């Protein structure tokens, strides 16, 4: 069983500080005006990195059983499916529903 990983205090602080730095970074990139599609890409990319750091080292997925990792990955897969199939409809309507 791999469920009792104990992180050192130093390590946890390191993870916390890296998250603070990434938060500052995601605000700082809005000061330099990145052109249209790329500002969103950069913001999401930083958020994904932060989320993966939290999941791996705070939620201990890095040391956890493969089954729990699979559960987490499957939730992302099904979320992508939800977004993908919804957009296949909404992006290709000849005229969007007028009242919405």
């Amino acid at each position, binding site marked *: *069983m791999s*469920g*009792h990983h*104990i*992180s050192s*205090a130093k390590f*946890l*602080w390191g*993870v*916390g500080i890296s*998250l*603070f730095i990434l*938060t500052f970074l*995601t*605000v700082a990139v*809005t000061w330099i*005006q990145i052109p249209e599609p790329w*500002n*969103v890409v950069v*913001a*999401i990319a*930083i*958020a994904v990195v*932060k*989320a993966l750091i*939290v*999941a791996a080292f*705070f*939620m201990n997925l890095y040391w*956890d*059983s493969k*089954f*729990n990792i699979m*559960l*987490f990955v*499957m*939730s*992302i897969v*099904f*979320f992508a499916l*939800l*977004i993908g199939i*919804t*957009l296949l409809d*909404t*992006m290709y309507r000849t005229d*969007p529903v007028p009242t*919405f």
Partner: protein
Amino acid sequence: MSEPSVAEENKSHILHHFVDSDQQFEASKMGMWVFLVTEILFFGGLFAAYIVYRAWYPDLYLQASEELDTFWGAVNTAVLIGSSLTVAMAIRSAQLNQIKGLIINLYITIGLAFTFMVIKYFEYAYKFEKGILPGSYYSYDGIAHEKANIFFSIYYMMTGLHGIHVLIGIGLMIWLVFKAKKNVLHSGYYTPVEITGLYWHLVDVIWIFLFPLLYLID
């Protein structure tokens, strides 16, 4: 506490249908991960609404997010990350049988969670005053876009549902403090701390996405 009572306590938490403490711990943790999957998909529906409307009305998002204060959004992000750190420290304290440290870390986490809610309260109050309310209650005319109320409906639904999760988290951590004070928790049984920690980190992860998506659309 004397030695024999510790040994007794180390077994007292095991339910009869589990082989040992580790199996019970792993089962609880897996159950929590299944719940977190449903939480991700619960918020996923709202993120889907956000994405669909952003694809339909990109200008609306650019204009409406001007009304959100990036500074306080960033402060709240830092507050939640700090609270995730203290929860991780609380779990570490429990694993090392440092019950005093566990309680202190839980108190700091509860304090940070309240800080988050107070900041959110002032953000909401400021918008309510201007007439920025969700849906048909929207009466603010500072944004030149006919669908302005839609952005704020999405904003209130996402941050509101997230806020409810923060409040539930506060309740859970107060419960943990009571449990810790009754000496129920120790290095052999800290499952409730671990499980609540997982929940709290997920609440943090959701805010990590809400912050850039709502506040940082220059």
